């Protein structure tokens, strides 16, 4: 079977299998989080400001710190991708490791925040605002966990020098998406009226 035969359709898009697939996946993820955010925003508008007294139960400072952590992790993973463009496996490995670490720190902050809120008696069934809070941050948290697992696997690959540019780019795109979701979640939950 003739492997060297390169067809016109494949040549110019050879490296984009992973990217094409990730972008299609992210399109459907935007709609899933879109459905969630639409429901939350519509209910908050319907409540006409009565939720801001409930939102006072949140701690915006931990959330701000979390946003810093996640933005920084976006920086480190894009540096990992940049390193892979020079096929610098070692630097990519360092950056991926940093991304995984920052992801874990994010989850740590989240756990602390959850424990504070639950100790104040705010549980998912307390009020629909809290139901949304736990549903939204919970689903986002799950996506962060999935991202950490993927990045950790790529961290190990980079250690063995087997990391490919396509995979690093795909993981990067997914992680940036998770960061963009938080960029919208943060003001919607913590800062809005």
């Amino acid at each position, binding site marked *: 079977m003739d492997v060297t035969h390169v*067809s016109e*359709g494949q040549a110019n*898009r050879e490296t984009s299998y992973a990217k094409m697939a990730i972008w299609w996946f992210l399109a459907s993820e935007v709609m899933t*989080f*879109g*459905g969630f955010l639409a429901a939350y925003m519509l209910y908050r508008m319907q409540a006409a400001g009565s939720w801001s007294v409930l939102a006072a139960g949140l701690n915006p400072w931990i959330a701000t710190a979390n946003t810093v952590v996640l933005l920084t992790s976006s920086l480190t993973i894009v540096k990992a991708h940049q390193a892979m463009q020079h096929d610098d496996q070692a630097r990519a490995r360092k950056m991926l490791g940093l991304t995984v670490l920052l992801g874990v720190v994010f989850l740590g902050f989240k756990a602390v925040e959850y424990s504070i809120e639950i100790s104040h008696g705010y549980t998912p069934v307390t009020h629909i605002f809290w139901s949304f809070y736990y549903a939204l941050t919970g689903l986002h948290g799950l996506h962060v966990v999935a991202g950490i697992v993927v990045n950790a696997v790529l961290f190990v690959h980079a250690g063995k020098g087997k990391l490919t540019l396509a995979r690093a780019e795909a993981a990067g795109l997914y992680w940036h998406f998770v960061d963009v979701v938080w960029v919208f979640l943060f003001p919607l939950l913590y800062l809005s009226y």
Partner: protein
Amino acid sequence: MEHAIHPEPTTFLRKHVFSVDHKVIGRQYLILGMVWALIGGLSAYLIRSQLAWPGKSIVGASLLFEGGVVLPEAYNALLTMHGTIMVFFVAMPILLGALGNFLVPLMIGARDMAFPRLNMASFWIITTASVILILSMFVPGGTAAAGWTAYPPLSARTAYTGVALGQALWILALALEFVSFLMGGVNILTTAITMRAPGMTMMRLPLMVWMQMSASVLFMLSVGPLIAGAILLLMDGLIGTNFFVPLAGGGGGDPLLWQHLFWFFGHPEVYVILLPGIGVLTEVLPTFSRKPIFSYKTILYATIVAGVLSFLVWAHHMFTSGMNPLMVMSFSITTILISVPFTLIIFALIGTLIGGSIKMTVPMLFAVGTIACFIVGGITGIFLGSAIVDTYMHDTYFVVAHFHYTLFPTVILGGLAGFYFWFPKMFGKTLNPVLGHLHFWLTAISFNILFLALFRVGLGGQVRRVWMSAPSLEPLQHLNVTATWAAIAMLLGQIPFLVNIVWTALAGTPAPGNPWNSNSLEWQTASPPPHENFAEIPTVHRGPYEYSAPGNDEDWMAQDAEPTSAAAG
């Protein structure tokens, strides 16, 4: 570097069960869809029998229900399961899973899907979803009984239907089905865009590939809100949150939000099912009319326009649900306008027959039957699109008859056209045409009697999803009985089909590579195709519909045949 094909499997497990070969996965989806079709058909039999002879013992139902009598709770569970199974576990696996997986790589001249392992995972996820759906029928509290649309608060609280775990498992089964087809969609799109054979430009793709791609795009862009809604409904059911259940004091959730999230997905979903059905027609009609498809570009652009419009019409399922009347009017207008692109597609398909040399083989019979019945479905949609007429018609049997006239032709008649057309390629054996003709006439005639009777019952004011028709509709009861006998005839009409399959599997004559002298690439290789599909990746020189091209003695010309004379398309 060409995407290295996975090595040929050797063990039985790798070859037939855990296979990454798109052809094997296509066959697995087909078998899963057909098994579910039988179960869905039997649930329809129980529903119809209960409506024709209320409260009586139904023949053959005593092993499911003691005394063979279907009680109201069981009836609601049956209609929920019938809707869920037919839409999500029969239509999608057969049209997207089986035809999509099997045909797309072959039609574009590739060796396999872009992500073979992801493809295998998608099949095993929908198989898990199937197991969960079956388990949900045997849990305490009974099967989900809030309709396949599961409107809260009915579906959100156990107190209203008595169903506890059943509803949660139903939601989980649907969520897994969505994940499975998201994976399938990514695969089909990435493959069709990046792995086309040399010379196979986008405008030389068979329209079936375009239809599979648009169906995947529609599914991927519309399923998001329903996944969000399903998670919220799951939390309502299990944890007791109030996303869709209002509180006495005015707080809490709004049941209308679920309807919006569901139907935002619901309407593109019916086009996800419809488009591959039309894709079958765009391959079968030209082959047996020996003539190019009429106006490839019009069909393509009409499909894209219909796809975009399908995101703007969802609320016509909710005209009487307490929506703002201004929104009702705008959705009524967009709904009626969506009949225009489909008129173009249907007339283009009919145009393919004009001036042809038509051979009424079994696939052609089913294809023409599909168009003929779908026209009735399309026209009755206009009644339901007009808000004022829908105020009377909504949730009556007129709606039931309408969506069966759109879904049944595309999924069953269209799916069978595809089955009989590609069976030689998929399984390497030739089906018996006589049994095929018998199967068509039994199915088509009984289908039309069944749902024409239900149109009349619906106009009379018979409400949908009722265990027994209203006493004031006693004069129409004879139509209910006629419809039930037609449903029984249709189920019995499937026997020639099953006999045909078993007989062909055991003693069928082997099929040649190109039994119908068709042009697209899947017919230019052996039947069934070898592991790597093509010995040599073909180079495409023309479109897939160059039948009876002038200056060519043969009345067909394969897409990859060398251009001999000026006839190169």
